[in-house]
């Protein structure tokens, strides 16, 4: 695997060097363009999926299991069917022959257990919220009423909610095959040797709590058929992937299925899925012959939109006495939930190569076991695997610094890859193409006023101020821009990581860019316009970007993993270059010159050294008219490209957080937050800043507020927004952001992904700050979210217990684990937390 990763990491430039020329005043790339998307969004002229009304449309609603684990012994839909306005009331058994099994596209090991996953449960339910029946009616209200008339008998089975217990002998089983889905290992170097005589070993256990992604737009699906072809509108991030997967799942031929992602209100990974409701909507419209719509409520969504994170982490660092790392060893338990959905098992693997962070070391060992429980399946949530990795290493680096009495920034400096060492191949075999950790960190420290805050902290500590100040550091990188197809193949992923774009210059000189990315808030219509505008020399306003409809954008891999710009944007650029090459040939013909003598600037082709030229618009019209084309040149001015990256993208940055912890109540307030990100060259600084802001907010959400909590019977207790706490404007500070710019060398624009960076970086910055505030109390961890109650308990119960650092001479690193955190792994599970 490592060899294959290495093989994919040769940076290569694909476009003309003039794309790298210094920005001129009128270049679009780099401009803070206001977004084209906003016009419909600020005026309410949107097309959310739930806004779509089709003639004769019916409404679907699903009856969902109230039991975490049970055998279905009887479903009676007859009373529901008899109600006014009801067109159909169906159970899983009614659909069993046609519904297939929801796909898992990432079988991470040969021996992975991928259980059958019927979109509607037939024999057995395995989480609260699993669909067991449905009603199709003439309006929403009638459907909701009829749903209550369906009778279901359950024979209860034991819930499985705790991963550790799930793996013990004699645990009740989620599936016949047992509760272990897979174990995946990746090791480099001699880890045993690194730890054997290591002067310092730090071992810590961390809990990545379960999260609910909470895109503001609840999911919705509209399905319709003309009897021959099918159209599915869905609030999805992945219309293209969905089309392929739905064709495979339902048997509807791919060429008879069109998938449309209309305006989509956020995703954060939660709409990177092939959902039961999408499959069932298609089956229902096929069965009934009328359009159907399903729109979830928030409380339904909290139960049944795939969840994120939910891992138990054990991380061990072996270090020298000066703080330099020798090795990192990681063991994960990853809660799969009840089934493996689209990329469920792959999520921890996306972090598997990142627990080394930005640091140099000789050896690395990562093991992950996927565990089934009777809970909603987990899957991608903003960052997917990388926030977990960054959290563990950045928390552990703070612990290392503390144990050595070093400043946390200093211990990072001693370990990180120096600017002059790039490109750098890490212990995990990834080649980080570029970076400047020194510059970003120095800038962040400066903006933050690090030294001043440390002085204040010391003062407050000395005075015994009940409000303690904590400072948290997070220096991160991540691998994004998913992804080189070859690498995905080596990791057993079911698809490639390329992206497609086509560009056509219309007869009037206006430009249409068709992209395979599928934005749902990212601003691709604006950013791709900027790229095309520069590449073709046409005004920004003259470019339209089309996306999100497989009938319009026939080829694509969609939007997730901070891939859109670094893969899809490069595809747009590349297609523009092809268009330009074709135009140059025609322009040369029109100018009666040879193509080599024709140069392109500011939207015009000119014969070198003359004032003679043709604008690209003139060329487009000529190409349309086709009255006088050179031999072999086809009419029209358009081109398409499919771009497959050679490497991942490695944005990085330094985030600093200052918190005030009220040691009496346990309440935490973020006082200041500084983020200096390096995402390479920037197409639109406004959009980049927005992505960073939102990412930070979500990371803070994990650190302080959010947790999906199941009770011991497997009931979700956080089904509404009153219980699952998403931060409001009052709970967050104004973010101070800045950038350093170290261009990527892996693509011609020098850009890096930015969509997940803020989330990946911020969670450890905040928790490090909370723990830092509480160091005088002997606290060295607070489980996320760091609720006031947990903070208060940490202060009073002293997670100060046994030291997590062991001296090698005592030969006890194995047993040097903190008693308290071991306890948390063994007994607290995910529901306890002192409740």
């Amino acid at each position: 695997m490592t060899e294959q990763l290495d093989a994919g990491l040769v940076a290569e430039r694909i476009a003309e060097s003039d794309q790298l020329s210094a920005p001129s005043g009128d270049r679009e790339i780099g401009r803070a363009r206001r977004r084209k998307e906003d016009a419909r969004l600020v005026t309410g002229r949107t097309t959310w999926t739930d806004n779509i009304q089709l003639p004769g449309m019916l409404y679907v609603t699903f009856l969902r299991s109230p039991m975490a684990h049970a055998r279905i012994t009887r479903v009676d839909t007859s009373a529901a069917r008899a109600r006014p306005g009801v067109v159909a009331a169906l159970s899983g058994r009614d659909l069993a022959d046609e519904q297939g099994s929801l796909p898992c596209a990432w079988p991470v090991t040969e021996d992975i257990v991928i259980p059958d996953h019927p979109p509607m449960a037939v024999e057995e339910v395995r989480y609260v919220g699993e669909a067991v029946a449905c009603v199709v009616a003439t309006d929403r209200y009638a459907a909701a009423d009829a749903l209550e008339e369906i009778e279901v008998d359950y024979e209860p089975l034991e819930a499985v909610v705790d991963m550790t217990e799930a793996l013990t002998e004699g645990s009740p089983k989620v599936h016949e095959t047992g509760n272990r889905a897979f174990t995946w290992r990746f090791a480099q170097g001699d880890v045993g040797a690194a730890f054997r005589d290591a002067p310092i070993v730090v071992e810590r256990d961390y809990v990545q709590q379960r999260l609910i992604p909470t895109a503001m737009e609840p999911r919705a699906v509209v399905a319709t058929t003309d009897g021959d072809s099918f159209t599915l509108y869905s609030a999805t991030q992945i219309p293209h992937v969905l089309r392929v997967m739905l064709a495979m799942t339902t048997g509807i031929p791919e060429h008879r299925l069109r998938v449309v992602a209309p305006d989509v209100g956020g995703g954060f990974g939660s709409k990177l899925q092939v959902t039961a409701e999408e499959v069932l909507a298609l089956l229902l419209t096929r069965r009934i012959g009328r359009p159907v719509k399903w729109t979830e409520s928030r409380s339904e969504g909290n139960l049944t939109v795939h969840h994120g994170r939910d891992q138990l982490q054990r991380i061990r660092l072996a270090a020298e006495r000066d703080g330099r790392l020798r090795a990192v060893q990681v063991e994960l338990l990853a809660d799969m939930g009840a089934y493996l959905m689209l990329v469920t098992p792959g999520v921890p693997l996306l972090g598997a190569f990142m627990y080394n962070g930005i640091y140099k070391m000789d050896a690395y060992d990562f093991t992950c076991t996927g565990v089934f429980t009777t809970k909603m399946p987990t899957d991608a949530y903003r960052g997917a695997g990388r926030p977990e990795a960054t959290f563990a290493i950045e928390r552990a680096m703070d612990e290392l610094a503390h144990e050595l009495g070093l400043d946390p920034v200093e211990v990072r400096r001693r370990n990180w890859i120096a600017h002059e060492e790039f490109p750098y191949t890490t212990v995990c075999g990834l080649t980080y193409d570029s970076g400047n950790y020194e510059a970003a960190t120095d800038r962040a420290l400066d903006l933050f006023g690090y030294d001043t805050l440390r002085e204040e902290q010391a003062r407050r500590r000395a005075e015994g101020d009940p409000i303690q100040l904590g400072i948290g550091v997070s220096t991160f990188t991540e691998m994004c821009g998913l992804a080189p197809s070859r690498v995905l193949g080596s990791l057993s992923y079911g698809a490639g990581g390329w992206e497609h774009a086509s560009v056509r210059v219309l007869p009037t000189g206006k430009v249409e860019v068709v992209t395979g990315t599928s934005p749902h808030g990212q601003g691709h219509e604006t950013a791709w316009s900027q790229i095309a505008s520069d590449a073709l020399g046409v005004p920004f306003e003259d470019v339209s970007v089309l996306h999100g409809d497989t009938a319009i954008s026939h080829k694509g891999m969609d939007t997730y993993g901070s891939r859109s710009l670094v893969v899809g944007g490069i595809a747009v650029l590349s297609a523009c270059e092809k268009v330009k090459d074709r135009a140059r040939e025609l322009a040369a013909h029109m100018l009666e010159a040879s193509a080599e003598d024709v140069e392109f600037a500011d939207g015009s082709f000119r014969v070198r050294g003359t004032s003679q030229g043709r604008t690209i618009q003139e060329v487009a019209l000529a190409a349309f008219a086709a009255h006088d084309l050179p031999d072999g040149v086809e009419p029209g001015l358009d081109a398409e490209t499919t771009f497959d990256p050679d490497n991942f993208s490695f944005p990085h940055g330094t985030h600093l957080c200052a918190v005030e912890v009220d040691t009496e109540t346990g309440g935490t307030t973020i006082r200041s937050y500084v983020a200096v990100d390096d995402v390479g060259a920037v197409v639109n600084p406004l959009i980049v800043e927005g992505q960073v802001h939102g990412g930070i907010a979500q990371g803070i959400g994990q650190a302080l507020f959010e947790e999906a909590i199941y009770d011991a019977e497997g009931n979700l207790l956080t089904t509404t927004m009153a219980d699952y706490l998403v931060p409001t404007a009052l709970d967050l500070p104004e973010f101070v952001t800045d950038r350093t710019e170290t261009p990527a060398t892996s693509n011609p624009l020098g850009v890096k992904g930015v969509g997940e960076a803020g989330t990946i970086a911020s969670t450890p910055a905040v928790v490090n700050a909370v723990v830092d505030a509480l160091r005088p109390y002997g606290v060295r961890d607070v489980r996320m979210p760091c609720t006031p109650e947990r903070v208060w308990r940490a202060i009073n119960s002293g997670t100060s217990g046994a030291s997590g650092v062991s001296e090698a001479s005592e030969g006890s690193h194995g047993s040097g684990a903190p008693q308290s955190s071991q306890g948390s792994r063994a007994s607290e599970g995910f529901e306890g937390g002192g409740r």
Partner: protein
Amino acid sequence: MPRITVTVDEITYEEEVEPRLLLVHLLRDRLGRTGTPIGCDTGNCGACTVMLDGVSVKSCSVLAVQADGSEVVTVEGLSSGQEWHPMQRAFHAEHALQCGYCTPGMIMAAIDLVRNDPDPSEEAVRRGLEGNLCRCTGYTNIVRAVRRGAQEMAGRHD
């Protein structure tokens, strides 16, 4: 079924409604005013915020019958053609939206806030928007936009 009269964005409608019909469903499903979205079922998210007789309300927590005789203004009623409300312009100018799902409610809440406080501080804006959740922006740009919109609104009335 109760018969109600309600004016929405300057158009008067007479409708027979089930008592349980939510105002937001009247707007969206009956009147086709889909600019106002629904984001939750507990009144937390504020995406469905509209003006009811001049003050902000969450239209998912109002029955259509309760709005009988009232005037509703939705985000769709703020602009005519190409001319946007200053708060809409401010959200655009400050990049205060990404997916845009919370935006109609945010804008309505912001206009209500400025009605009471024509020059709100950052703190006042954050407090005024506590009933509106955004998952994309982290609120920093929303706060900037509301303060900018307040200035523009004041300028317009000078």
